């Protein structure tokens, strides 16, 4: 390909990808348009709303503010890559514990902020398995939600943290609930 494009290798949801991308392409555009992963949402394109949050090497980023070329050689997880990652429950449900907690607590209304919100929560719980309420609120303060008023989201993240710390839960396997 000509000038202005670059070849990058990224692992997306555990799958290695080799892509020829314009150097100005954002990670959000790569995920949504090049790879067709529409679960990641575009709400503002300015890093204000958090709807486009994905994990880059396990850490939440606004994918509208990251260039695809910056992800070269790195690991990207989107909402589509979350299922199965937390281990299924005894009913064979493959949802991640954070997704399950969002459903149980009614933390989803219109759902447009939900993928980004869930990715931020997963990133938080990987770094801090036992967050306080203030830590949860601080972590999601870059993810706007106009529907819920946040209370149910905060409850869901706290509960997911507790579930994941149980034996067999993601991030806490074999560690027990201490």
């Amino acid at each position, binding site marked *: 390909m000509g000038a202005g494009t670059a070849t990058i290798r990224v692992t997306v949801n555990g799958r290695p990808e080799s892509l020829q991308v314009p150097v100005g392409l954002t990670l959000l555009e790569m995920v949504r348009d090049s790879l067709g992963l529409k679960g990641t949402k575009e709400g503002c394109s300015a890093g204000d709303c958090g709807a486009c949050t994905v994990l880059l090497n396990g850490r939440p980023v606004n994918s509208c503010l990251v260039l695809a070329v910056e992800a070269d050689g790195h690991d990207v997880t989107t909402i589509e890559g979350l299922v199965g990652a937390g281990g299924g429950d005894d009913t064979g449900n493959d949802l991640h514990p954070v997704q399950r907690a969002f*459903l149980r607590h009614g933390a989803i209304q219109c759902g447009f902020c939900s993928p980004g919100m869930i990715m931020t929560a997963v990133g938080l719980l990987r770094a801090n398995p036992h967050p306080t309420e203030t830590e949860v609120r601080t972590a999601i303060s870059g993810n706007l939600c106009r529907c819920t008023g946040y209370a149910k989201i905060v409850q869901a993240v706290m509960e997911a943290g507790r579930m994941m710390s149980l034996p067999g839960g993601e991030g806490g396997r074999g560690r027990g609930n201490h």
Partner: protein
Amino acid sequence: MATTSTLTAVGRPFERLDGERKARGQALYAADIELPSMLHGRLVRSPHAHARLLGVDPSAALAVPGVVAVLTAKDVPGRNAVGSRGVQDQPILVTDHVRFLGEPVAMVVAESVAAATQGTAKVKVDYEPLRGVFTPEEALAPDAPALFERGNLCHQARTRRGDFDAARRQAALVVTNVYRTPMVDHAFLEPHAAVARPDGGDAVTVWVTAKTVHPMMDEISRILGWPKEKVRVIAATVGGSFGGKPEIPLGCLVALAAVRTGRPVKMVYTREETFQTSAKRHPYVVRLTHAMAADGHILGLHADITADAGAYTTESRAVVGRAVGHCAGPYYIPNVDVEGRAVFTNNPAPGAMRGYGVPQVAFAHEIQMDIIAARLGLDPVEVRLRNVLKPGLPTITGQPVLEGVGAEACLLRIRELLAAEDATDPCPPQGVPDRNGELLGWGVATFYYGNGRTAVEDVGRARIRREADGSFTLFVGVPDVGQGSDTILAQVACEELRVPWPAVKVISADTAHTLETGPSSASRVTVVVGRAVQEAARRMREFLDSGGGADWRPGDPLPEMAAEYRTDSTSLDKNGQGSPYGTYTYGVQAVKVGVDPRTGKVAVRKVLAAYDVGPIVNPLLFQGQVEGGVTGGVGYALFEGIRLTEGRVANPNFHTYLLPTALDSTAPVLAETVESHDGAGPFGAKGIGEPASIPTAPAIANAIHRATGGRFFELPITMEKVYRALRR
């Protein structure tokens, strides 16, 4: 009296039906739809708020690689005017007269968004700028430039009853104040988007993000000059509405572009476009005069309400029509003289937003009630109790309050809860900091809200089909805009069918499969559409109970039942008298604030609410509506506001237009319901969507007054305003 305790589906906190799809990222919003050989649209928008359009030259844009077409007003085959509620005065592409900044003058259609964007920069447009009008006062001045031939007065509405002048003469106390509220944005997280696909040469399918699909179908068919049967409109997953969406010109434009190019077309607004050009909440100036008896009874109310309608009618008539009927609050007032008007300006046109003209007047009447209480030496709850509407008493439009309504019970319950708070956690006196250095205070606000569309017979329709496997499919014309209406209506159907949850699947808002049943707005879905669902389900159950469908064989048509429900509402006479709604939701919120005296920063510490909303269909969704509504109310009270400079939105993004974040919205919201059963909705249930938000801003204003002594008559009550008041 029915209670939910005997019910198995209604009253249960089921997870929402679309929740798992959304949690997995599988729900398809309009911008997520991809179709083969799809084109992308971008709009050329006027940089002037008021101008004569002299000419559009697309030739340079057509030379941009990838640009397929440039559409202008000349390409509109039908009548180039759209609108809602019967007034069509807005062109989808400007013909000759630009009325607001950002109004579309041409649409560039290209192989990619990038090419379309490049193309828009190459379209040459000649304008002759005109003097604009940017406030209702300017617009009504004798020498003001007119937006329309008929002048700048968009609409006028009145409510008159009794003899206000006589009441004023008898009054022991007369209280007059002027209240101002800002334009605010819905700020749904999903920007406007639409996709159209030509189906052969003479039909089109359009996916929109919308609270309603049938009026969109009507407008597209008129724009194309096609019969309605040739236009199918489907609501994609809707990323929040709050009264906003559809953006009618957007749906028409993608349909037109698809028909002209013969290829699917998608268009997605940027956040800035959404802020600059789509509907908002109307800014109001409200002047209220209460004539009071010495014992705290309201003898009369005079109100003068002016709304900025912006550049086109959109929903301004109905918004003002609702405001003049709600501006008294839920109180019995025998003598009333109310006049409201909407005025055209060269600002972006406001439309419907959560509360539909009522949050503005509730801010005014609820601060009035607190001021009156203080002047008469009464407790704020007590003055409300002396006037609150009771069964049999008329509202200011003369509609008798239904038996079973518990507006008074809401106030009594809030009084009990506040007494308990005072016993366990009393606030220090006004102006005295607590041990954390905060000024504390509780404020209350009461409201009522008519469920359904104003002064028209509101119609709900639904259809239920029994599938071959014995399950049921419910077809309803209203989209689930995120509030959970699919789930609520399925619970009603399950209950009436007496089948276990979730044996009912829902197909909503697809003009090819669902009956017209009005919009997902006006807090009407549960009551009006819910009753139609209940009736369709009852007919299906009776059909099956009487052996219907027993001889069904594969290949036979599936058994189906449809039903229609019409509210008892009436039109209003020239004095605004009549019964404009089937029923009302009533309620009270009490809000505790903490004010930092060093900075003026206000934090909401606790929210108590009591509602007359009938039995709750789904407690999880109910609590979600209340928590979200309160949070929207906190933003409205404390910091939200579109800042306009000659029609240009100065804060068109989320780093300048701030929304409440998880760190701003930390207060527990404890919502209760009182016993109420006025029989209007299915199993007695009523609407909560808008009522959740309406009383929050005035309750906060009253709480700030209790904490600091400062009175605020204009929203938002920013930190700077509180800081200055504390220094006075």
